[in-house]
């Protein structure tokens, strides 16, 4: 059952993978900008970043701080300077990303308003210095007056700053200034070059699946429509009803059009009627072999049942017990195709086919097939006799006979088992 749906499933899977790949590069593609925000709560008015946060995603960062109702100052300086400045207030420190849209923070030591604001690193600060910083440690302290910042920006309600990373340890300080200053909201935005690592692999894989699925699908259909062609492909023989003369055994037979003259009218008609004469144009041996291998392995994937169901064999199904033939027996029909051509031309244009059987067939075409006595009696049970254990020659002969019958509109006959015929084919190819 699974095999019957394999072509369709493979095709669908291929489509799905391609679609997923395209979606990964379009719909699901991450934003080319990373915006990360933190909205600290608390009594302080200062937000700083740890060193390394500013170039977390990309060297260029846009910083925005907003605190409605107060003046906002943004400043970038050495991490020690920023930490030293912030130590005078209650502050929040941004330590990294908690998600792609949120900044992770940790609270700095709480500094009560008016309490001694001894800077972390300024332990050696003189008494006067401490006294001075005390007087400015309230929320009204304006970092903008400091000499320590490389760049700074200020504005009412919000401020924006851009920064390109440079060697060193840098931090940003965002402070809201005013009597009723609240914690500013800090937003960092980085351009984020987003790759599409899955696009090419997904399209390649999906495309391969798609091609394989479509190939299997068309093979399935083709096998149902014209099993002979498929079989011809499978055995690697370009077969068809091309050459009429027994001299076809000559390697590298002339192209079809040079043979035109030797074709009977019927043969020409046949050729026109059926696309099966496509292989009349000799396929290069190597290509044929490759095709044979491909088709063989593809057929191995396909359900034999499909063929049984879908194959309208060229022969009208006479009211014979054929339908009742056990499935395995019928499954041999593909392998019986090589000679079941519309017209069993005796000479393959390219007789150097890996399987010598057709060559032999060509040589023998003049004589009626030895199995022809089977013709009136199509019962299946006979076929197993020609099965695996039987020597290939006779098997091939029965296959040819069958093909011959089909070609002439007689009911096809099932000969041999699936395994047996496949073995024959495989061995023939193996040679």
């Amino acid at each position, binding site marked *: 059952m699974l095999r019957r749906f394999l072509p369709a499933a493979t095709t669908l899977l291929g489509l799905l*993978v391609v679609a*997923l790949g395209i979606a990964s590069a379009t719909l699901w593609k*991450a934003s080319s900008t990373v915006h990360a925000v933190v909205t600290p709560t608390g009594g302080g008015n200062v937000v700083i970043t740890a060193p390394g946060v500013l170039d*977390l995603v990309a060297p260029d960062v846009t910083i925005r701080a907003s605190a409605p109702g107060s003046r906002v100052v943004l400043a970038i300086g050495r991490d020690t300077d920023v930490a*030293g400045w912030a130590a005078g207030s209650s502050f929040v420190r941004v330590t990294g990303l908690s998600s792609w849209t949120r900044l992770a923070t940790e609270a700095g030591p709480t500094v009560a308003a008016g309490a001694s604001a001894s800077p972390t690193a300024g332990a050696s600060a003189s008494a006067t210095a401490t006294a001075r910083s005390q007087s400015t440690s309230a929320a009204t302290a304006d970092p903008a007056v400091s*000499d320590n910042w490389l760049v700074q920006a200020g504005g009412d309600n919000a401020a924006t700053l851009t920064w390109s990373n440079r*060697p060193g340890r840098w931090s940003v300080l965002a402070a809201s200034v005013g009597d009723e200053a609240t914690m500013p909201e800090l937003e960092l935005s980085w351009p984020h070059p987003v790759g599409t690592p899955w696009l090419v692999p*997904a399209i390649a894989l999906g495309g391969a699946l798609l091609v394989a699925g479509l190939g299997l699908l068309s093979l399935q259909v083709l096998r149902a429509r014209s099993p002979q062609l498929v079989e011809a492909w499978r055995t690697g023989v370009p077969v068809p009803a091309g050459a009429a003369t027994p001299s076809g055994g000559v390697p590298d037979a002339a192209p079809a059009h040079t043979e035109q003259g030797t074709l009977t009218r019927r043969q020409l008609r046949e050729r026109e009627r059926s696309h099966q004469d496509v292989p009349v144009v000799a396929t290069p041996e190597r290509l044929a072999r490759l095709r044979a291998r491909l088709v063989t392995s593809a057929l191995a994937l396909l359900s034999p049942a499909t063929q049984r169901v879908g194959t309208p064999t060229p022969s009208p199904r006479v009211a014979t017990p054929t339908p009742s033939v056990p499935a395995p027996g019928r499954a041999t029909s593909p392998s019986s195709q090589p000679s079941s051509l519309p017209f069993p031309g005796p000479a393959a244009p390219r007789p150097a086919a890996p399987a010598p059987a057709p060559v032999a067939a060509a040589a023998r075409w003049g004589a009626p097939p030895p199995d022809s006595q089977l013709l009136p009696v199509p019962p299946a049970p006979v076929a197993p006799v020609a099965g695996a254990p039987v020597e290939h020659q006779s098997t091939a002969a029965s296959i040819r006979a069958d093909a011959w019958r089909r070609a002439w509109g007689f009911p096809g006959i099932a000969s041999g088992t699936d395994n047996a015929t496949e073995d024959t084919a495989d061995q023939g190819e193996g040679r």
Partner: protein
Amino acid sequence: MSTRRRLTAAALIGVLGLLLTSCAADLPIPHPDPEPAVPRPALDVQEISAVLRSVGAALKAGDAKNNPAPLAARLSGPALASRTAEYLVSAKSADPSLRTELPVGTQTVIAPDTNTWPRALVVVTEQPQNLQTPRILTLVQDDARSPYRLWGWARLLPDTRMPPTATPAAGTVPLAPNATGLLVSPKDVVTRYADVLAKGDSSTFAASFAPDVFRKQLAATLAATTKGLVQGLGSAAKVAETYHPRAGELYSFSTLDGGALVIAGMTTTTSLTLSGGKVEFQNDVAALLGTTTVSSSATFVWSDVVVFSVPPKGSSAKIQLLAAEHVRTAITGK
């Protein structure tokens, strides 16, 4: 067949899973540069220029009206005291030349390699327009939230040479007051120099200091004052002068020759005691004193800034006074 089906299903799930998980990349974590073993300069050249421009602007604003109010933002310590006194004097006599000209263009900059406070930045200025010797400006940031303020200035003494110091980009390591590896620790340099000033050549430390113009001038001024008073008042007038390094006002930097540049604040007090008669003052002194005559005593307070070049330990060289400033900041008397 069932195993194959299972395998197929597993493969499908695997492919889909990979596609889905690929959409969520790992969050980056900060990778800051490592902390340097020696701190980077606290200020880069641009920041130093900005600081000096601000100081220059504050001085200009104050100079315009002899008003010390604008100075507080950018001046402190002896510089603020000296400038305030100079304003008082120059306002009284309407003579701007009584103010020390303080250019802010730089010849040499010593940027401190430090993460801590207070921080001191030293600048050797270009030559002033009045063709006096260049100044050594010392700017101090008391704490992380303070601006750099001009703490003191000193004039380079003639025939002195600045010891070689590192470029501002590299920065100079500040030294502790008790730093070793020097002929004399920075703290001791100042106290010993004060002793030499007080005792002259009879000081035990006199031999370790090279002779300098500043010391000579102080001694000469004191001698002249004493001589003048004695001439006028005889034994009724007594003059004494003391020299005290000011606590906490000491900034030292290592120099490239292994020595140190030591900058210190010092207070010189000149006391005048009269047991009879009176002394009349004019001009600048009168401006600071608030009156013109005293009959019992007068105290002159000078704010000094002294800059030394201290050789490394083991050197046979002497400690050299590179620059000094001696500004009268207060006079009291009655």
